[in-house]
């Protein structure tokens, strides 16, 4: 298997990427064994000098301080010669255990669009001979942001599974938490690494309270706080506070601060302010959506809704967009419009728990509409 991996590394640029890397590695291991038998027979028939010249030059292993095999492979996959989203998408597909549909969901694009992006990335890998190789330590920083995104998106897919009957896929969350922990030990002075770890811990602390005993989704404000993991909340708070002291906060540190604030307050004005810092780092429609929700919950529902409506062109495929919009419409008393938005969210939601939650909301919204909405 060790040798099969080495071959995989060599062949990637030449033959393109396999659709199922695990199965592909096994196949390669078998072929490699046949090759070796064949080669040994041929070599015995040749003069020793010639045999020596035929031996392939073994590639020198690159010294690396990354202590974890999967993390090393993730760094190898995030080659900066690929566009950032392509690095992340390809790594999630090949090493994160996500299907093309799940990767598409993580990027809020249609599956066909993602399939095309992945095949374009593979085409560049093939044509430009981008090697799949564990990078030396000095090459880690330029790959770090993409690696953080990969770990975050693995967690996300586990935290709110995009399809299927279970809302939470524990194994994906646990693996992402483990990878974040390894990264934090490897780079204890990198604020963003600590930010990511704190963010994942803060989300994970609420895992048992997010679905009720019947498997239905429970919104944060209605969650049973006694089911939150106190030691994990403490750890998330401590790590986030430490990350905030390491310099001007960037993406993951700000998101961690927001997640931690949710666990303690929440103070929606403070959360809206943190989101505006996040929005200032670069345009991101999901950040803009969350900021709009925070503004609404801080008291200005109309402003929040107007901000959400402005995001429709970018977020029409995102079920949280429609669910958030529905919730604000409901709060403003526009029940018919709220029902339409819940229905649209329901069309897009992938997992059973989220669908059940939205169906419940849709039912109650409809049953309370009727004569009052005629006006």
């Amino acid at each position, binding site marked *: 298997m060790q040798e099969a991996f080495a071959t995989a590394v060599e062949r990637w*640029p030449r033959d393109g990427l396999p659709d199922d890397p695990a199965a592909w590695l096994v196949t390669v291991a078998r072929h490699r064994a046949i090759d070796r038998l064949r080669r040994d027979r041929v070599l015995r028939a040749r003069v020793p000098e010639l045999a020596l010249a035929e031996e392939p030059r073994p590639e020198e292993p690159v010294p690396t301080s990354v202590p974890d095999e999967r993390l090393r492979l993730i760094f190898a996959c995030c*080659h900066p*010669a690929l566009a950032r989203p392509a690095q992340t998408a390809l790594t999630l597909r090949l090493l994160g255990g996500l299907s093309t549909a799940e990767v598409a969901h993580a990027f809020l694009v249609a599956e066909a669009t993602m399939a095309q992006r992945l095949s374009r990335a593979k085409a560049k890998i093939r*044509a*430009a*001979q*981008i*090697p799949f*190789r564990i990078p030396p330590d000095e090459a880690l920083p330029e790959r770090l942001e993409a690696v953080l995104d990969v770990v975050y998106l693995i967690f996300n897919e586990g935290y709110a599974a995009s399809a299927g009957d279970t809302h939470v896929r524990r194994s994906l969350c646990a693996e992402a938490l483990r990878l974040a922990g390894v990264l934090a030990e490897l780079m204890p002075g990198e604020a963003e690494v600590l930010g990511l770890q704190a963010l994942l811990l803060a989300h994970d602390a609420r895992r048992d309270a997010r679905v009720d005993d019947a498997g239905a989704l429970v919104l944060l404000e209605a969650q049973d706080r006694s089911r939150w993991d106190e030691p994990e909340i403490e750890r998330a708070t401590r790590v986030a506070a430490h990350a905030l002291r390491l310099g001007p906060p960037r993406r993951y540190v700000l998101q961690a601060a927001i997640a931690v604030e949710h666990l303690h307050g929440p103070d929606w004005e403070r959360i809206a302010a943190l989101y505006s810092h996040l929005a200032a780092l670069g345009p991101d429609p999901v950040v803009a959506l969350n900021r709009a929700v925070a503004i609404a919950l801080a008291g200005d529902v109309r402003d929040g809704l107007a901000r959400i409506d402005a995001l429709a062109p970018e977020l029409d495929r995102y079920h949280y967009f429609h669910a958030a919009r529905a919730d604000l419409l409901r709060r403003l008393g526009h029940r018919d419009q709220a029902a339409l938005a819940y229905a649209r969210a329901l069309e897009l939601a992938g997992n059973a728990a989220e669908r059940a939650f939205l169906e419940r909301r849709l039912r109650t919204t409809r049953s309370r509409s009727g004569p009052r909405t005629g006006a």
Partner: protein
Amino acid sequence: MKVLLTLYGEERAAEDFSPEAGAQEMAAWQAFDEAARAAGVLIACEGLEGSHTATTVRVDGGARAVTDGPFIETKEQLGGFIVLDVRDLDEALEWAAKTPWNHDGCFTEIRPVMNYAAWMEATQERAAS
């Protein structure tokens, strides 16, 4: 694999260099040339005369049209090229980082030389489908 490295940057006339700086520049390129040759990867490495020397020719319907230029309105002009025979993109990137073409405002574009067999195969695949 063969790769073309195209070198872009702000143009500097020979007169912009002091004799010492000019000699230094030449020596740096000489050293790069020798290192790449010794490693067995160098196919070609040349600098180009300034963009004011460029001439464009188009042959349309048998008629030849020659024009002065093109004069592209960007600060970065094509200043030279290198052709290498390397194992993969990472090796090309390593050599690109070793050229003297790495001061402010300079960049190097790396493109693989076309794989003709794969290109022919692709044309046939398209025709077959």
